[in-house]
């Protein structure tokens, strides 16, 4: 299957990429391409041009900025899994990355691409929300940093202008993380999350939980958080908190799993995620 005709550009800098996006209003950014190229091959997307930013070195790699861990948007899942900083300080991201697609997909797929794509069944939005990450982007009017809860607006809809480029994912207050995890119930064929839960316990007793897969876009489980935060992670407290996992959320259903089933699984996986924070 061939995609429809398009122009291909490989700019050397983010500012050149922004210029190309402004000159070509129907253009799309190309990162790992493992979400975009399949929909182009099916002609569900027909951008006039692709702007390949995957090799811009400023957008690659993991670094520490004080107590913040900064992931370049074009860092692939497998590069993230190989990062010593991530291994030592945020191993929950390795668990999450190891859950994405398969080896070949992880060798191409990027963290920034996953964020900008806002796939409702994507794994990373959930763990990034639970970690209270920030997403930095650059556009013609300069840069801005948004919280992940602002950024993940809706299904396939990030809070991002068409001529704006995601440059960094920033995870703040890393030393305050006592324990963090990502668990999911994967669709057995596609590997996408039917339900995925990101969970973080901080040193000052807060619990941050988020869900993906069962809802239109990854979201925090605020009712669970307020029920459990500051309390012991006893079996009874966990059970009571996990029961609130469906509060305030709309669930999605499809041929693979109904909305009722996904809502049920959200409670089950919220409980399991809380248990693993003990």
């Amino acid at each position: 299957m061939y995609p429809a005709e398009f122009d291909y550009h490989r700019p050397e800098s983010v500012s050149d990429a922004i210029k190309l996006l402004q000159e070509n209003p129907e253009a799309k950014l190309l990162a790992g391409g493992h979400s975009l190229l399949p929909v182009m091959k099916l002609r569900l997307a027909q951008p006039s041009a692709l702007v390949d930013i995957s090799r811009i070195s400023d957008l690659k790699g993991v670094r520490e900025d004080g107590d913040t861990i900064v992931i370049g948007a074009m860092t692939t899942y497998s590069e993230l899994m190989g990062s010593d900083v991530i291994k030592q300080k945020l191993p929950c991201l390795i668990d999450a990355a190891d859950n994405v697609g398969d080896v070949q997909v992880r060798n191409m797929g990027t963290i920034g691409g996953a964020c900008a794509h806002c796939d409702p069944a994507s794994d990373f939005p959930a763990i990034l929300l639970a970690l209270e990450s920030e997403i930095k982007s650059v556009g013609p009017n300069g840069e801005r940093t948004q919280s992940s809860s602002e950024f993940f607006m809706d299904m396939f809809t990030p809070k991002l202008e068409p001529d704006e480029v995601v440059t960094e994912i920033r995870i703040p207050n890393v030393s305050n993380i006592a324990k963090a995890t990502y668990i999911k119930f994967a669709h057995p064929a596609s590997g996408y999350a039917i339900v995925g839960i990101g969970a973080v316990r901080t040193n000052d007793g807060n619990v941050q939980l988020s869900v993906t897969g069962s809802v239109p876009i990854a979201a925090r489980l605020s009712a669970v958080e307020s029920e459990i935060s500051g309390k012991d992670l006893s079996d009874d407290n966990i059970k009571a908190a996990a029961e609130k996992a469906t509060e305030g959320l709309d669930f999605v259903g499809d041929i693979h799993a109904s909305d009722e089933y996904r809502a049920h699984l959200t409670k089950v996986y919220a409980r399991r995620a809380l248990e693993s924070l003990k």
Partner: protein
Amino acid sequence: MKHEITVTVNGTKHTSEVDSRMLLVHYIRDVLNLTGTHVGCDTSQCGACTILFNGKAVKCCTMLAAQADGAEIMTIEGLAKNGDLHPIQEGFWEEHGLQCGFCTPGMIMASYDLLQRIPNPDEQQIRHNLEGNLCRCTGYQNIVKSVQFASKKMSGAPGDD
């Protein structure tokens, strides 16, 4: 839109003019005539098109030839040296890791990526790392054995690439 790309495939440098929308798998098969890399599902699920791209396994039905400009690629044709099968190929031969053989090139390239990272994988690691490759004949049992054969053989012969 046409682009000039230069890629090194199995150690040989090629310079070609390609269309923006040409997929890498079609470049490899139809321009370079290396037809060992297969097109299976054409939707990045089955892994039959797996090659090594700058040393890492990728599904080249989901890549553009233009993205490969400057890259080092290895396909299934690059594994055997002077007529001697690579230990992974030998493993698939000895352990009956294939029946129809359609998935085999991709399966072998994904196994190559695995054994580079984890030279002595256990069964669970082999199955997890080959999740991106589908085989409709073998039930995977013999593929696991094939990779174990290769792992043993390669660890006994240090320096083997």
